[in-house]
């Protein structure tokens, strides 16, 4: 049974050092690579009364764990200047936004529109699914296969995904492993 949370739930969480117990910043936004299906990093806000955008970013590689109540990093050196961050963490996310994309199966059925990312709690930020606004109405949750094609307009997923639409995060947590096993992923 996996414990999951959405990217919206991660926004605002404190970023806390394991070694020092200090809150360095809080999560502003989740930067995601939809083609690779993985988190690239987090942008940050300052904590406290001087709240505002924090120049430093947190690359996914430097995340110790994403938990229900905090994002853990080892120490201050985990936060880096955008120009020193690997990949695209420092760049704006607009052109690779998956939110609002239509989720289409390979067979051409629309399952709904992506409204949020779903991450595995306790991991270093593994993205395991999407929250969708279901074609038939209401929120649903789908597991994420390893590879998807994504255009910024639509996201193509295996037909099998249609059998795995869940009503809540608990259901998705229980379904992720079976979904991956059925697809032949580990």
């Amino acid at each position: 049974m996996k414990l999951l949370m959405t990217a919206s739930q991660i926004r605002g969480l404190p970023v806390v050092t394991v070694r020092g117990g200090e809150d360095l910043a809080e999560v502003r936004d989740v930067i995601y690579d939809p083609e690779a299906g993985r988190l690239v990093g987090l942008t940050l806000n300052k904590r406290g009364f001087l709240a505002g955008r924090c120049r430093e970013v947190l690359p996914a590689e430097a995340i110790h764990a994403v938990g229900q109540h905090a994002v853990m990093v080892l120490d201050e050196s985990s936060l880096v200047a955008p120009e020193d961050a690997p990949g695209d963490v420092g760049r704006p996310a607009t052109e690779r936004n998956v939110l609002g994309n239509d989720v289409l199966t390979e067979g051409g059925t629309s399952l709904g529109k992506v409204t949020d990312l779903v991450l595995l709690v306790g991991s270093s930020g593994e993205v395991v699914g999407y929250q969708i606004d279901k074609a038939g109405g209401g929120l649903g949750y789908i597991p994420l296969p390893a590879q998807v094609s994504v255009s910024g307009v639509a996201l193509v997923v295996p037909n099998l995904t249609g059998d795995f639409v869940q009503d809540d995060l608990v259901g998705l947590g229980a379904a992720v492993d079976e979904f991956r096993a059925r697809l032949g992923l580990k």
Partner: protein
Amino acid sequence: MSESFLRSTGRKVISRASAKELGAVNTLLVDVEQRRIAAVVIGRGKNAHLVEWAQISGFGPDAVMVVDEGALRPPADDREAAAIEGRLELVGKRVLSERGNELGQIGDLTFDAHTGALEDLLIGDLHVPAGSLLGSGSYAAVLDKSQEPS
């Protein structure tokens, strides 16, 4: 002998050399990295002083004995000043697992009255071995993942 943080606060502090009462235990300064009591804080505010653990001749059930009055010193750095103001206090601090989940608050801690080594942290009904403490600061104390309910 095992001693508790909560039980030892308020205990009188006596000079072994002069038998004079020097004050009462306000709080204890914990060295999180070494997982031991680094110093005893006596008095409050501007009158607060520290006594290094090595200068304590006996951490007894009725009194804390220090070698002499010369063992009392003012805070030497920012960390000690913060300790006197209670900002480094472990007891009452929020507890996070290294996986980022809240586990509760530290209610009390126990230590060896002879060596000053931390023994257990009390979090709710749980006794957590001090060896699980990875770090502590202004926001939280962080425990290793062995303390996370799976």
